[in-house]
């Protein structure tokens, strides 16, 4: 960071460090170095004294060494040529008799992050892996990952990977966890570290020896392991049982996720686990750390999606304290809104009613919207509370209540009467766009029941010139036209004025266009207008959509203990898409030409396929395996659900096809040799609802036609058609390449 006066500081420090008197006095020398570090940590550019610092590294004083190494790690990328000078000292320190010095030197050397350092650090790292002090081994293991990161494009070193896999059996628990972390980074492009049965069992047995961070991470890695038999699965669950009661909330959540994932075919086990972690979760919700509280509350909401009654008994825990920060209060209100039932509704509503007058406008509005949410089930009580709130005549309260009313009459038409009675008098307390739109909409749609509706709208029309929001003007046009249909006498004049204003004076194009549109519509005759504007006033069937049926636990188990519950699924998807796009932006590889070593499906197509499968709401599960016998049995049992002929050119390359299908998670069960006539292939895939797809590809005597037959375990036409389109895309792409 450029900082006035930093040059002077650098000059002064440089002078001090060159001063032989200071160099001779260990204490003073160290003090100067400390000052350099202090400036560095405050973001000043201290790279000017690099040369002097390199000199200072040749010392027996560990503290001074630490400081200098710290300095070098920060500035080495800026001064790579000078940093090379320091490597000699570092290499020497790597064989120091004191393990602490060895570890320190190795760690610093691996963190230098400058080109060309790789050749120097390779040997020390290999030595470090076999060091007898566990401290050095820990550093060396992570050093492997750092070394790999320096040259991400370089080939993965097979011997190093093997060495790391063997170090998983190290007796030091942190070395074991570091091995996993390191392998995960090195093998990133191959899908990370592989957890097979021996490794999984080894890790499970070492779990109790690890610290909480290690436990958390190992639990995460174990998600990749799929037990072979039911017996093994329950053995694992038994082993992990204690971790559900760990004192660290992170470990508890990690263990819960693993339980949910392992028991995905045993809903009763999943339910049982959620009951068991209820206590720890509630404890985290009232933890001292507000951040922990927040994350736990997000997970509580997640669980409530599947088990609505799960926390109902503990509803009082989610009452807000005055001193809590907003983000916690907002989460708690959402939770309260979701766990309401017949027994506690009275108390919850009373509590929420108290929040509606909170000093913070945001929180008050959130509470009002929450009452609106509860109103979908307990309409009468809620509408009464909301109506009372209007009596407060406060701006932020009124606008939130009116918006809630708008949504409510749409979903629960039976409350329209009560709402219409409450509305008069609201207009003067609403200033913001959203609130005005809601009020105007209500007046337009239910105007015939509100005696003074035309006059309220007239007031709006009178002030339309000073109205700043175009959306309000458009809403006003529509509402007035609607009201004109039911109460023509009172509205004709006002409507005329408004349409005239919109066409002649309004500057906003959208408003003007709508004005013109209505004008022309009116010219065609009143019946046309009625046909277009009198859409249904409410649609209670939408209400069913709103309170969705309980989601199965499996639908969110994979998101548990990630950032998804914090953001909510939909928002998370946009955030992570944005990030992916940003990250990919500059380093997007040039469109691949189809050389032999390139992936067989160009990158873009791969995505297209995946997007396609997402769009069709069909997700094929990776790594699904069935045996040939099982395939045969099922194939014979089922009827052909779909048959189709696709154009095909040239010969088939079985390997190419197999790889391409693998990419979209379709497994090849059996396939004829290349060039065989007739050529056949049998494929299988499974989607996330466990529906099995079996397919046969047949290349008959006519090589320009590929016959595809698909069989499906459960008849679901949507899934079937998305599966076929996935298959078509793959075959189309392969066909294009081979021809």
């Amino acid at each position, binding site marked *: 960071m450029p900082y006035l006066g930093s040059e002077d500081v650098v000059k002064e420090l440089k002078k001090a460090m060159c001063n032989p008197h200071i160099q001779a006095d260990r204490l003073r020398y160290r003090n100067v170095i400390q000052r350099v*570090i202090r400036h560095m940590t405050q973001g000043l550019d201290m790279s000017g004294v690099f040369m002097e610092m390199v000199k200072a590294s040749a010392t027996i004083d560990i503290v001074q060494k*630490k400081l200098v190494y710290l300095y070098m790690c920060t500035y080495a990328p800026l001064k790579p040529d000078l940093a090379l000078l320091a490597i000699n000292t570092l290499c020497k320190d790597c064989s120091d008799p004191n393990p602490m010095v060895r570890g320190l030197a190795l760690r610093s050397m691996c963190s230098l992050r400058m080109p060309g350092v790789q050749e120097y650090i390779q040997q020390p790292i290999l030595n470090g892996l076999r060091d007898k002090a566990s401290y050095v081994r820990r550093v060396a293991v992570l050093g492997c990952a750092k070394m790999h990161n320096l040259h991400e494009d370089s080939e993965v070193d097979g011997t190093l990977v093997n060495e790391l896999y063997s170090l998983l059996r190290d007796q030091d628990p942190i070395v074991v966890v570091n091995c996993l972390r390191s392998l995960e980074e090195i093998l990133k492009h191959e899908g990370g570290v592989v957890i097979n049965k021996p490794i999984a069992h080894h890790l499970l047995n070492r779990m109790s020896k690890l610290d909480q961070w290690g436990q958390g991470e190992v639990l995460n890695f174990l998600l990749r392991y799929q037990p072979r038999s039911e017996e093994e699965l329950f053995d694992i669950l038994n082993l992990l049982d204690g971790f559900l009661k760990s004192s660290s909330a*992170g470990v508890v*959540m990690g263990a819960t996720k693993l339980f949910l994932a392992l028991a995905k075919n045993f809903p009763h086990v999943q339910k049982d686990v959620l009951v068991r972690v209820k206590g720890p979760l509630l404890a985290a919700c009232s933890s001292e750390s507000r951040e922990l509280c927040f994350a736990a509350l997000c997970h509580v909401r997640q669980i409530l999606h599947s088990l609505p009654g799960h926390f109902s008994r503990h509803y009082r825990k989610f009452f807000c304290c005055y001193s809590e920060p*907003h983000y916690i209060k907002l989460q708690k209100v959402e939770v309260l809104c979701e766990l309401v039932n017949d027994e506690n509704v009275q108390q919850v509503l009373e509590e929420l009613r108290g929040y509606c007058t909170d000093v913070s406008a945001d929180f008050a509005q959130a509470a009002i919207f929450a009452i609106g949410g509860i109103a979908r089930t307990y309409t009468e009580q809620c509408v009464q509370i909301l109506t009372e709130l209007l009596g407060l005549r406060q701006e932020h309260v009124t606008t939130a209540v009116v918006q809630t009313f708008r949504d409510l009459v749409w979903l629960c038409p039976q409350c329209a009467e009560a709402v219409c009675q409450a509305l008069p008098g609201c207009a003067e307390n609403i200033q913001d766009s959203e609130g005005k739109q809601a009020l105007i909409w209500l007046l337009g749609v239910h105007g015939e029941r509100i005696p003074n509706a035309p006059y309220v709208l007239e007031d709006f029309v009178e002030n339309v010139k000073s109205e700043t929001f175009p959306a309000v003007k458009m809403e006003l046009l529509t509402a007035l036209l609607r009201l004109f249909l039911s109460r023509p006498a009172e509205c004709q004049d006002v409507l005329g004025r408004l349409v005239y204003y919109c066409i002649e004076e309004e500057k906003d194009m959208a408003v003007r266009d709508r004005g013109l549109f209505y004008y022309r519509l009116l010219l065609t005759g009143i019946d046309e207008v009625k046909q277009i504007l009198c859409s249904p006033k409410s649609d209670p069937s939408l209400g069913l959509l709103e309170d969705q049926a309980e989601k199965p636990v499996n639908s969110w188990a994979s998101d548990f203990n990630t950032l998804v519950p914090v953001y909510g699924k939909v928002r998370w998807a946009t955030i992570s898409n944005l990030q992916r796009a940003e990250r990919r932006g500059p380093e997007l590889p040039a469109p691949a030409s189809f050389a032999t070593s390139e992936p067989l499906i160009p990158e873009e197509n791969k995505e297209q396929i995946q997007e396609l499968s997402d769009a069709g709401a069909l997700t094929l599960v990776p790594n699904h395996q069935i045996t040939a016998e099982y395939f045969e049995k099922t194939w014979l049992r089922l009827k052909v659900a779909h048959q189709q002929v696709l154009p095909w050119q040239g010969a088939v390359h079985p390997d190419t096809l197999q790889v391409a299908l693998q990419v979209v998670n379709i497994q090849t069960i059996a396939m004829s040799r290349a060039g065989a006539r007739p050529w056949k292939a049998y494929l299988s895939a499974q989607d996330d609802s466990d529906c099995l797809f079996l397919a046969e590809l047949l290349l008959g005597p006519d090589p320009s036609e590929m016959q595809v037959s698909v069989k499906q375990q459960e008849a679901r036409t949507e899934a079937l058609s998305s599966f076929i389109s996935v298959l078509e895309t793959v075959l189309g792409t392969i066909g294009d390449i081979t021809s």
Partner: protein
Amino acid sequence: MIHSLFLINCSGDIFLEKHWKSVVSQSVCDYFFEAQEKAADIENVPPVISTPHHYLISIYRDKLFFVSVIQTEVPPLFVIEFLHRVADTFQDYFGECSEAAIKDNVVIVYELLEEMLDNGFPLATESNILKELIKPPTILRSVVNSITGSSNVGDTLPTGQLSNIPWRRAGVKYTNNEAYFDVIEEIDAIIDKSGSTVFAEIQGVIDACIKLSGMPDLSLSFMNPRLLDDVSFHPCIRFKRWESERVLSFIPPDGNFRLISYRVSSQNLVAIPVYVKHSISFKESSSCGRFDITIGPKQNMGKTIEGITVTVHMPKVLLNMNLTPTQGTYTFDPVTKVLTWDVGKITPQKLPSLKGLVNLQSGAPKPEENPSLNIQFKIQQLAISGLKVNRLDMYGEKYKPFKGVKYVTKAGKFQVRT
């Protein structure tokens, strides 16, 4: 995992940064400041913020923000817990976790951060292992250091890793063998206008300070273990033994650690040790109001309640307060509108009260809601849940240790609505 860490003070200065992988520019914190601006009150900054390239996960402790930069997706609880551990370590080393303490000891802070994380992964976080690697500063040691030029870095490696039990180092020796346990309970409660309990719960912990030679195997039993609802354990405790016999059996770590934490949540078991009589009213016409609160003991099992403080966030339209306490002192900050009354001890003969007049802004509408009172207090020698340690036995070693248990009850989030 954790890419970088920034420490930010309340006025928005980044006063320390540390990077474990490549250097992330300070400008990433702009997203944090943006969120801070949006949140109005700085305490309300959401703990997870997403930026185009990173996620920022932050905690707020002792008026400092610990902002970590994350590049890959991680379990949020994991990072939050780790950041708290970092703050705990600072607290442990410097006695307080403040900007001044961190700036004074910036070199030790860096050494600690370097040992706690490598390549972004947690490494050594146990306080007794860290203390062997890097000795905490003491006044005496810094004087000695400045004379002899020696350092506060251990020359030998911690021996902890060599023992078979990862949380205990081998070859511990003490001349006085002692084992102390602190049973600390906090009451979280919301009391409504009429004095009835809306919600109450006890959060308890047992902290231990064990200074025993060799490899002692302890078992601790309670008079009434069924009280404990949800218990979470230090890894040293044998879980199976607790499940079957309700006895805590363990080989303890050396030094200070948290043995268990528990909750007692069935409401009829939670005693509320104080009551508040209050009458707070505002008049619309004369732009003034009355304020009168009295505190008294209730269900306090015959112990003295001490260290009482009452904090009230008064409504915004309040200008100032003119009050007289019968006991203790009060302050009112007209900017933040916070009233603090430092009461002290309750003597049942003469109940402490605070009463007087308040002035409102003239012309402003009278506040809709009465303020809530936040109350802090402390009761020595009492665990309000009634939990009692029965006995402590030691196996595996021959000597006779000195044993002690202390109980204390405190108010957690204790709130009275008016």
